[in-house]
């Protein structure tokens, strides 16, 4: 497997994530799609470390940071979702249209 393959995969992952984020109607789904995008980045980082800069660790360090932060984000997101669910009994985005121009 060459770097190109890894990058292709990660690009695909990223695009799938974007597509999902744009099309999923359920917030959980959107969150998962965004996770995919993060992980595409992680895959990139790891691959770069492995192929281009085997001497350094920055990529992996960064990946770890990303994973942590992503986790944190999911936490916050779910917390918000919970609050919303309490108020509106739904997790579907099209039900959120109080705020409009």
């Amino acid at each position: 497997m060459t770097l190109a393959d890894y990058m292709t995969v990660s690009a695909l992952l990223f695009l799938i994530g974007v597509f999902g984020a744009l099309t999923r109607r359920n917030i959980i789904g959107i969150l998962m799609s965004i996770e995919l995008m993060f992980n595409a980045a992680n895959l990139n980082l790891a691959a770069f470390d492995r192929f281009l800069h085997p001497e350094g660790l920055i990529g992996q360090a960064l990946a770890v940071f990303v994973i942590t932060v992503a986790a944190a984000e999911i936490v916050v997101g779910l917390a918000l979702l919970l609050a919303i669910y309490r108020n509106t009994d739904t997790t579907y985005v099209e039900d959120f249209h109080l705020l409009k121009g």
Partner: protein
Amino acid sequence: MIEYAWLIPLIPVAASLIILFGAKEDPRSPLPWIGIGAMTVCLALAVSILWGFVSGGVALPYEKNWDWFSLATTIGGQSFVWTMPVGVLIDPPAAVLLFVVSLVSLMVQVYSIAYMHDDTRYKRYFAFVSFFTAAMLGLVVSSNILVGFMCWELMGLTSYLLIGFWFEREGPCEAQKKAFMTTKLGDSGLYLALLLLYAKTGTFQLTQLHQHFALGLVAPAAATVAAIGILLGAMGKSAQAPLMVWLPDAMEGPTPGSALIHAATMVAAGILVVSKLYFVFLAAPLAMEAAAWIGLITAFMAAAMALVSFDIKRVLAFSTVSQLGFMLCALGCGGYTAGLFHLTTHAFFKALLFLGAGSVIHSVHTNDMRQMGGLSRRMLLTFATMTVAVLAICGVWPFAGFYSKDMILVAAWNHEKWIFWPLLLTALMTAFYMTRLLTLTFLGDDRDHERFHHAHESPALITAPLLVLAFFSLTAGMAVAHDGLAARLFPKPTLSVAADAAAATPSASVAASAANNPQVQTPDAEQELPDWLKFGIPGVFVPGAMLLAFFMYRGPKFEAAEGLRSAFAPIATLLDRRWYLDDAFLALVAFCDGVAALAFWIDANIVDRVFVDGWGLLMRIIAEISSFFDGAFVDAAVDGVGGLSTDLGVGLRSLVAEGQVQEYMMYAAIAVSLAATLILTR
């Protein structure tokens, strides 16, 4: 006394202010006597000046100037501060006119004391009259044509006020507006002439202007344009064709006021200005010719109208116009002396005629001559004085009108036969319609017994002025014509350069060009009329016309006249409708209103839309577009941006659920990929 000449216009101004603000309005107010007093002082000064000149004690022209204001100006690319003088310039004609104007005004005021008593605005009337006279005197004496123009316009104002004196009625209001607008139309010509003269000479001083012209520093073309402008002004003020429309309506004012307007001030001003700027005309033969012909045409048209009118004041008004035509024609023919001479004599007998007519109206309470007749038996004094006036205006020897009119005819004869003959005809028409007026009013039998029995002679305050004026109407001609005094009083200006004039002029170039001056004129030799005319006119023609009129109109019904009228019905109506000039004037007014309405429509519906609201509209459009991209579109529609956007908004809503996070993301993603491709593929 002449060093006090500058007081002459100011005294009546002061008087009018005192009268106006002196006390509350009161029909029996004593204040008017102040005006009379002031005018008496003016008269005294004028007499002293005139007599001093005639008796050789005083040398004219007399000029004295003071600084008025200083003005930054640019002549020939050079900018500097130039001081505008104001002052008096009294040449012989001015001296004469000072006397005439102040005398007539004095008479009119005395007369008015009786005539206007217990009018609601008694006091205000006298204030106006004094101011009016002041303006005229100012024009007469001012050495600065700009000041002259100011007085000229102020006269327009006061005539406006006098004509519309009884503004509760509709007639006076229309008349005053008409008078002001028509004269204003002419004034714009004078206005432009002044601008042009200043542009060419850089001064408003009559003497300096005269020098510039005498030295031929002004191109003939410019002179012609300026002269025509001046002529326009004169046509407006002196009611020459076709701007004569306002004068007959001006009758709506109080009769003594009309006397003042017609005899001594307003209408005389036009002729006066032409005479003051006569050197411009001398440099512009074309304009001279125009003046002559316009004068002739006016004289004829007015006289023709006077033939058919039955309103005593209108007849007098038409006769005024006609006589002014004579004067302008004389000036145009080069008869400077004749024109001004007639101006003075005319002032006396026309004032007399109006005051007399006023006295008649005062006693019979109508203007319609068909309801008068035989009044000589009721008001002898008025009749006698009126007769003098009529004889004078008809040009019967030895009354004043004879001499002046004779001079005019001579001038016309010398200038152009084609002008002379119609002018002669007009003179005879004058004799006819004036006699007609006299006959209809005083002679024959009384047509309206009711009015006749209530008629009575007017009080002394009215008759005394009549007598005074009658005296002058009788004697003025003889006095002035006697041993060439006329030529001394009204010396014709020339374009020949006096050495001192050349010396006096500022620039050296002037003096240089003085040497080889193209247009030095020699006064043309006056030749007499052929004898058969010289003696035939006063001896045969004029009396003939008068007798004709007398016999046609002495009867109660004057069938002959009516017969003629019905025989020439179309002409009669043409004259009754005053040559349709009024209709033309009204059409012009209507046209202007139409244009105004159009202009405003354009302003409100095109200019405003395009240049002001256009901006707002543009903003709105951009706003709609940007809101479209922001998904706030529907709400924009709710905000009342317009129905169109609502439909679009609904359509949009069906495509993507707007106002929702995923739509936002989509826009973002699209933008990102666009930007990326854009930049990377560069």
